[in-house]
Each structure stands twice: as C-alpha cells, then as structure tokens.
C-alpha cells in the first residue's frame, strides 16, 4: 500500500485516493483546427516514462481536492514537493 501525501490532510493510505493520470495535459486551444490524429493524440496518448512522472490524484475519502505530485514510476517514491502551478492555471 502506498502512503500518499495529500497537500491538505497529510499522509494517508492509497485507498483514500483515486488516480487521475498524467498532469498538465492541456485542452487544445482550438479543437476545431485539429485533425483526427491530433485529436486522438490529445485524448488517448499519454507519456509513460521510467522515472519522474507528474500526475494528478484526488483525495476522494478525505478533503475531495485534486492535486498534483511527482512519482518515480520505477520505485513509487513520491516527492513531497508539489509541482509548481503553471502560469496558465
């Protein structure tokens, strides 16, 4: 069982969370300009790195807030540092 650090509630069991996939996948600025391949790429294609990965989690059984964290996909080590919020959000 992983111990996930919610930025609000602190360290909690993995069972209290849901996984939200890769972080920072932006909705296309003008979706109508995309062809099918590019739209498919946006919808379905995600990075799958071996190593550091920015991802979204939601603390469903706790404060119900979404947050991002950095997890090492090889070791499951999670960085307690919250990735810096980007300018666009």
């Amino acid at each position, binding site marked *: 069982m992983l111990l996930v650090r919610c930025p*609000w*509630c602190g360290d*909690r069991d993995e*069972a209290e969370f849901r996984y939200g996939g890769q972080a920072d996948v932006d909705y296309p600025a003008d979706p109508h300009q995309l062809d099918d391949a590019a739209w498919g790429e946006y919808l379905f294609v995600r990075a799958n790195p071996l190593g550091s990965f920015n991802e979204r989690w939601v603390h469903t*059984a706790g*404060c*119900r807030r979404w947050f991002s964290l950095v997890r090492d996909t090889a070791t499951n080590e999670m960085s307690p540092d919250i990735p810096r919020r980007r300018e666009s959000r």
Partner: protein
Amino acid sequence: MTVLNKVESETAAPETATAARHSPLEHRAAELERRSTSGARGVRLHEEPFLSQINLRTPPGGVESSAVSDSLGLPLPTVNRVSGDEHHAVLWLGPDESLIVAPDGRAEHLLRTVRDAQRGGSGSAVDVSANRTTLRLSGPAAREVLEKLCSLDLHPRSFGPGDCAQTLLGRVIVVLWQLDREPGYRIMVRCSFADYLVDLLLDAMAEFLDG
C-alpha cells in the same frame, strides 16, 4: 450538492418533521446498549441522532471568514482541527470548507447567522443535517476498536482531543472527531452506510465483551 434556498428552508414545518422522523440506527439502540461494556477495557457505542450540521464554504483568510467566525463566536479551525466543543463546534473539512456541528434544532438559526455574515461576499452555507448520523464511541478500549478499521495513526502523539479527519473506516467515508482523552470519538457517517459501519464496529468490539 443541492443548495437549499431561502424559500425551501422557511416553508419546512419543523413540528411535523420532528414527529415523523426516524434516525437511521434507532432500531439498533437496544443492541448497541447490550454490546457496550464498562470497566478498564470497556467500550461503549451509541447513536447521537439529528445533530445540526451546516456545511460551510468560505474563502480562507478573507473578510468573509472573519465575519463568519465572529458571527459564530468561534475561530475557524486550522487544518485537521476542531474549534469549539461538542455542543457548538466547527470542524475542518478542507482548505475552504468546514462543518458546523450543534445540537438538534439549531440548524435554521445557524444557517441564518452564517448567511447574514456572508452577505455581499463569496461562500455558501448549506444545511446537511440529514446527510449524516453520528455515532459516539467511547471508553478505554475505544482507540483499539477504531484501530482495527482505520489506517490513521490514532496514538495520542498524533491524534488527540480536538482533532478531526475525513477518512475511511472499513470501506466507509466518515468524519472522525476525537472529543476527549478517555478516549471518546464522534463518528459522523452517511445515513445509508450507518448500519454497515455499526456491524463493523460491533464486530471489532466483540473481544471486549467479557471485560
């Protein structure tokens, strides 16, 4: 979440509602009494039905939050803490979310107070009293019982009186609130999960039945 508007709250007839209402665990009151034990390794469980509960959303640190806190006569709680006592308390639920808990029948008054304080600012206050019922688990063995169901560290060094947490007991989302050192806890649970949670708790309490 449905926001209760002013018209709805004023047209409700409190007398009729009181006469007709049933708490989710009233049919198990005798069983809870029978399975509670006293003594050095005792643990007691009973329902505290119909507590008034107001879900409060307010931007942290803003003018609204100080107005709300003045109107309640309580500071808004810091992270994972409760301010006030068991008769009038505000529980921390999230960075901009708290739960006001008071005895039965106080909801309408509290709602009016808080909404007056929020007037002109942002935030919301919603009566969620019917959302959850409350279980009171107390006695010297109460922490041992909870530890069978809960992944939180409940040892006094990390969880004590005035602490609260939204977490899982078994498979149920609850608001767990420690009231005193005995230890005594309030467990606030959705009405529809209350029966299941009582089954889990009674099972966890079984070993203490013979003292």
